[in-house]
């Protein structure tokens, strides 16, 4: 541990912040963030993770554009319809430039009484791209009804199948991803803010206040997060507005997310406060607050960002678990974890395997976030291996 910290110190001495390094003689463009970006770029997986995450963010921010159906738009005629195939070649072997879906026919198996869906190849519905559909607003003020893809009149477009109420799973994944990412990133940001504050104060003051804060953090870290999250969100009034529940859950996650971040930031600040430029600032009589905010915090910033990025995947898994257990976000809102609720029933799962798809989205997103966090950590602290 100590070896790593001394390495980190060396690195900081070599790459001071561009704002106060006139003595080093480096061009201004080679500031620490520039060097970090160069390091980060070499981390191929982190780049891939970042690109994937950006795509996901665009997908969920403009969810109504990418979603063929509204989040709660159900059609009970197509309850538990399996994923539909998109065709380019029709039954006569002709290629169509515009992909199409066939009409789905529902029938009941005479022996098992199960529902069975099949394609009626005589009726094809071409998919309309950049088509007009249901209305929505972007950013709360742009009213539009433009969608990436819509089935033509009378047809259906269920890319990932439907749930019990005949709601399109792909659309619900997009809208659910919005909430999932909002809660995880929001909670990560809040924990980062609070953790950075406590960590900086604790690390910079050191001595008795530091000891008290550290003991308190140790106690909080002793609690297994999931049971406490479960207990706190179960205590939320059931008759609350779903929006308020979302805010409350974000806060609950932040409540247990900050101690880990505070600890990491404290370690960093503890090393920084021994730096010569901080001693120099203290010697010329700069106030405590100004030292913290002007000299220590900017240097610790990259580490704070890294801590937040590495905390978000855990928060996301926690939120998914909570929602999966029915203690998180309440219907009609649904995060990815809540979308998996129905898959818990083994009979349902036997017939409708596509209900597991939201789980793949959780996995991929967590993976992308971990890769990104890894790359950022390497960039911020090039001597650590993970």
């Amino acid at each position, binding site marked *: 541990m100590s070896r790593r910290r001394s390495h980190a110190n060396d690195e900081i001495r070599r790459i001071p912040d561009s704002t106060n390094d006139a003595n080093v003689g480096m061009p201004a463009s080679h500031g620490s963030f520039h060097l970090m970006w160069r390091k980060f770029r070499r981390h191929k997986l982190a780049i891939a993770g970042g690109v994937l995450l950006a795509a996901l963010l665009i997908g969920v921010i403009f969810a109504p554009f990418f979603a063929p159906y509204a989040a709660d738009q159900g059609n009970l005629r197509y309850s538990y319809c399996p994923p539909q195939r998109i065709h380019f070649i029709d039954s006569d072997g002709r290629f169509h430039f515009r992909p199409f879906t066939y009409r789905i026919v529902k029938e009941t198996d005479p022996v098992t009484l199960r529902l069975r869906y099949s394609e009626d190849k005589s009726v094809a519905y071409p998919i309309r791209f950049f088509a007009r559909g249901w209305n929505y607003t972007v950013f709360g003020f742009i009213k539009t009804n433009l969608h990436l893809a819509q089935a033509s009149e009378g047809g259906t477009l269920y890319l990932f199948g439907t749930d019990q109420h005949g709601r399109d799973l792909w659309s619900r994944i997009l809208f659910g991803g919005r909430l999932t990412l909002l809660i995880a990133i929001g909670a990560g940001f809040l924990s980062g803010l609070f953790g950075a504050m406590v960590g900086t104060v604790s690390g910079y003051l050191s001595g008795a206040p530091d000891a008290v804060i550290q003991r*308190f953090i140790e106690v909080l870290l002793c609690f297994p997060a999931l049971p406490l999250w479960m207990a706190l969100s179960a205590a939320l*009034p059931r008759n609350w507005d779903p929006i308020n529940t979302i805010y409350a859950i974000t806060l609950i996650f932040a409540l247990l997310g900050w101690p880990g971040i505070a600890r990491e930031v404290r370690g960093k600040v503890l090393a920084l406060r021994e730096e010569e430029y901080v001693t120099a600032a203290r010697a010329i009589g700069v106030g405590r607050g100004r030292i913290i905010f002007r000299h220590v915090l900017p240097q610790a910033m990259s580490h704070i960002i890294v801590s937040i990025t590495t905390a978000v995947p855990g928060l996301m898994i926690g939120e*998914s678990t909570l929602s999966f257990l029915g203690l998180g976000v309440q219907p009609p809102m649904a995060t990815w*974890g809540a979308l998996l609720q129905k898959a818990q029933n083994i009979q349902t*799962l036997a017939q409708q395997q596509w209900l597991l798809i939201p789980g793949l989205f959780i996995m991929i997103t967590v993976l992308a976030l971990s890769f990104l966090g890894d790359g950022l950590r390497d960039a911020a602290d090039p001597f650590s291996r993970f």
Partner: protein
Amino acid sequence: MGGYLIKRLLAGALTVLMISFVSFVVITLPPGDFGSALEQQLIRIGGMSREDAAQLAEQLRTQYGLDRPMIVQYGSWLAGILKGDFGYSLRYRRPVAEVIAPRLGWTILISVSALLFSLIFGILPGIYSATHQYSVADYAVSFFSFWGLSMPSFFLALVIMYLLIFYGGVRNIGGLFSLDMALRPWSWAKFVDFMKHFWVPVVIVGTGGTAWNMRAMRANLLDVLGAQYVRVARAKGLKERVVVNRHAVRNAIHPLIMHISMSLPWLIQGEIATSIVLGLPTTGPMLLLALQDQDMYLAGSFLFLISVLMVVCNIFADVALAWVDPRIRYE
């Protein structure tokens, strides 16, 4: 060593005290109290008249001291715990201690087995991966460790349950025994049956830790293998096996021991989620039911017990670490 131990124990006791307070806050969080919950239950299920129920609830409030200020209540709750009385579970209609004890045993058994599983199946591939850097196996280990860390245990449990039932030919996955074995006394046949069920939660709970250990072991060992004393050991002409096993691994494993105590919350967390999906008779489903029914004495006491367990394990881990690494003692 003795002084270190005493210091550690004192800090632990203080932590337990603070944990008990947070747990008590959780108990008192939901609107209404034990009395009003019981009152509702008596009217709804017991068919008691409103007045009788209110009277009985009031009597119970006095008996449990719920009419006194919160800090006094906290004191008596704490005093009760010291005597082994954790309160009364509404959901199970039994003292909390009786409900938790057998379930906690299973939870600990599954968590500890998962911990051992993750140590064995994390460290060995980690060593192999570090000594064969950039080989196919190394990439496989890296891939697995990323995959394992990004898989929520409840989702892994769902997928494994699905695979076992539809491709593995297992008929009854819920529980730790087959239906016909559950009530029989312990025998070899029952043990075999138990193991057939037991490995499933162990593997699911252990996957995350296995992935972490692989990654940590690989990274630590790579660090240590670059150290000068390893080069010296090689220069002395020692066999590569001795260099790795006797010199490098011993130093690379310290951070992992330190991490055991930190990984406990994750184990418990995974165990709870997995048990709920698989329907195991452990504390997971119990906690969920308790929270759904606002059976707060059960939930709060469980939270307290599990956190105390965590503190105890932390102390063990710290002492173990001080024992293998003398530098810690003189910090």
